[in-house]
């Protein structure tokens, strides 16, 4: 019987639910099912599996530094290089898209795994993996949905449009979709945000503890659980001003709603921090 894991692991698992909602839904699953016959889709999985196996058995590490870089890059890029030939030969991008979707799926899975179980990952790592998983899940969901609408299996272009906010500032005409399950995702994120905050803070404590005493038990995380919970609660409360400022901005500058409120709150907090640190 597997031993019970720590509280932060369960909270991390709960906080990835919104991402799971975007991946495990009929639209996405139907798209995956349609790719089951694609050789490029499976070869991407196969090559990355070979890469992971070689890494696991220590073969990659046994190579010299330069050879290692070339070898790893080659194995990781190969799944996307092979379908390129098919595009040049036939002009059909379906193999390329299949390989790309495989990458997105693997990337999301690995990121989610790191968010929930990642040992040796600190606060920044946890949040970064969460960010990657969220972005890639969003692309997968949007791409699959757009594919159904346009008649493709997966729309690569519209998948990118979903995260192309930056490009739209410089004139790119993005066409983000209104995703049907986004309401559930937003509700899920309302719980996931404090969840990932708690998880990231606890991971930071654990990481420092491991660095100080690699063989020691995880005592500090449990001893500081209340402190971490208090910090999480504090940060959740401070998100309310962001919400109210956002509501105020939505009416006249909706495109700045993700920029101005957080920057204002962060500015105030960092200013307070500056004065406190200066003393």
């Amino acid at each position, binding site marked *: 019987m597997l031993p019970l894991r720590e509280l932060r692991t369960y909270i991390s698992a709960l906080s990835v639910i919104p991402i799971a909602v975007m991946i495990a839904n009929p639209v996405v699953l139907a798209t995956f099912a349609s790719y089951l016959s694609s050789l490029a889709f499976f070869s991407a999985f196969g090559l990355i599996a070979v890469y992971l196996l070689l890494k696991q058995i220590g073969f990659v590490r046994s190579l010299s530094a330069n050879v290692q870089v070339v070898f790893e890059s080659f194995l990781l890029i190969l799944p996307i290089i092979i379908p390129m030939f098919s595009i040049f030969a036939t002009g059909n991008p379906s193999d390329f898209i299949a390989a790309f979707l495989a990458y997105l799926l693997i990337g999301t899975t690995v990121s989610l795994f790191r968010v929930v179980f990642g040992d040796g990952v600190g606060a920044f790592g946890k949040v970064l993996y969460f960010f990657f998983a969220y972005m890639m899940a969003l692309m997968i969901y949007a791409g699959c949905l757009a594919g159904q609408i346009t008649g493709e299996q997966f729309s690569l272009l519209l998948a990118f449009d979903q995260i192309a906010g930056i490009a739209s500032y410089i004139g790119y005409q993005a066409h983000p979709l209104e995703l049907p399950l986004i309401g559930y*995702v937003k509700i899920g994120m309302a719980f996931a945000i404090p969840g990932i905050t708690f998880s990231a803070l606890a991971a930071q404590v654990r990481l*420092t503890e491991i660095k100080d005493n690699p063989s020691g038990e995880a005592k500090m995380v449990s001893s500081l659980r209340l402190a971490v919970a208090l910090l999480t609660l504090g940060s959740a409360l401070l998100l309310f001003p962001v919400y109210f400022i956002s509501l105020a901005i939505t009416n006249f500058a909706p495109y700045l709603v993700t920029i101005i409120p957080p920057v204002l709150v962060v500015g105030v907090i960092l200013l307070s921090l500056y004065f406190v640190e200066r003393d």
Partner: protein
Amino acid sequence: MKKHIRLLIGFFGLMTLCSLALLPDATLAMLSVMLALSINLILFKFLKPFDSFEITRVFDKYQVMPPEDINTTLSMKYNGRFPANASVEFDCRSLGLNINTGTVVFQPGETYDLKKTFLADRRGIHKISNTKVVVKDWLLLSGITITSKDESELLVLPHIYPFETSPQTSAAGLLGVSSAVKQGRSSEVWGIRDYQPGDDFKIISWKAMAKSPDHKPKSKITAGEEGQAITVVVDIGKDMELPNGDQISLDLAADLAASLSYNFIKRGTRTGLVLFDTRPRTVVKPSRGESHVDSLLRNLAKVQPSNDRFLITSFTNSYLDFSASEFGNSFVLILGRTDDRLIESYLSKLKSTRELVIILIYNEDNLERAKQIQDTVKKNGIELLLTDHATIRETMKKMEEWSYATVKRT
């Protein structure tokens, strides 16, 4: 750049990316973590857990004779209102002591005790560093170091090898001389000996001189005194830093000097100490009593090899300046330098004026030369004992015999 600043910048970058990508949920997630980090740092400065620690460090002894265990107790009390992370550390590098609790979560009002025993086996004054308390915030990102001004010293004295024969049964005892350590000279006369230059005229026995066949002056041996004073001279030059077993030659010299001084004084003989390289660096005039023993041992505990080398020519000049009345006529020279080609000839000169025994400390590198010196000076009637870390007890035994012979002679 500090860890917490790096982390905040990293999160700010991620948040900006999410903001510009128009991903409000992800932006809020980044912002939430960033706010939590900032609150943590602000609370750390606001609650000031670093002002609420009481640290007490105690050693059960501060002066020991090696090898001896020293027990240390570190008592930590945290008086804050919220849990705090802190590590407490101090060390004594020269004794290989390093106490570090690692980061511990201190709960309000709790007391933590740490006990450690370590071995003091190296002569010298060993500095125990100040106790450092590194108090960290809840997420262990930033910390403040508080250094308590409790730097202290442990005095590890030289090792003392006692003479095998106790003072009561020694040759001195056989001569009828008291082994009392009381200071000064009594009017009670225990015996007569040959006059030695420097003897106080008051103790010259004119009657004994008249009765003696050769009419040579005689001095009285009074209660509380055993013969003339003995002075131990120790070479503290650079050559004494040569390794000798686990120690250096100066450690052996200090052990020998301490043992001889202690035993001589215990037996009632006034004993002095001179630490010499190119000139006398420390001069402790012969005396007796516990405080004098303490002074000698402290000097020998502290001494370290100097940057200069022992000069036999300088020593010869100084040696002649040591008045017999103050320093006596018997000298023990503990020497470590062997490569000086003048040693043999100058040692012969020294012998001609006073009673001198030389202990030459060698190691495997200069054994040949040491033997050569021994052979040469032996021809001139000078007693030279070779010693190293393995033969120090034998040397002490020979010195014990020599000391009894000195008393008998007197």
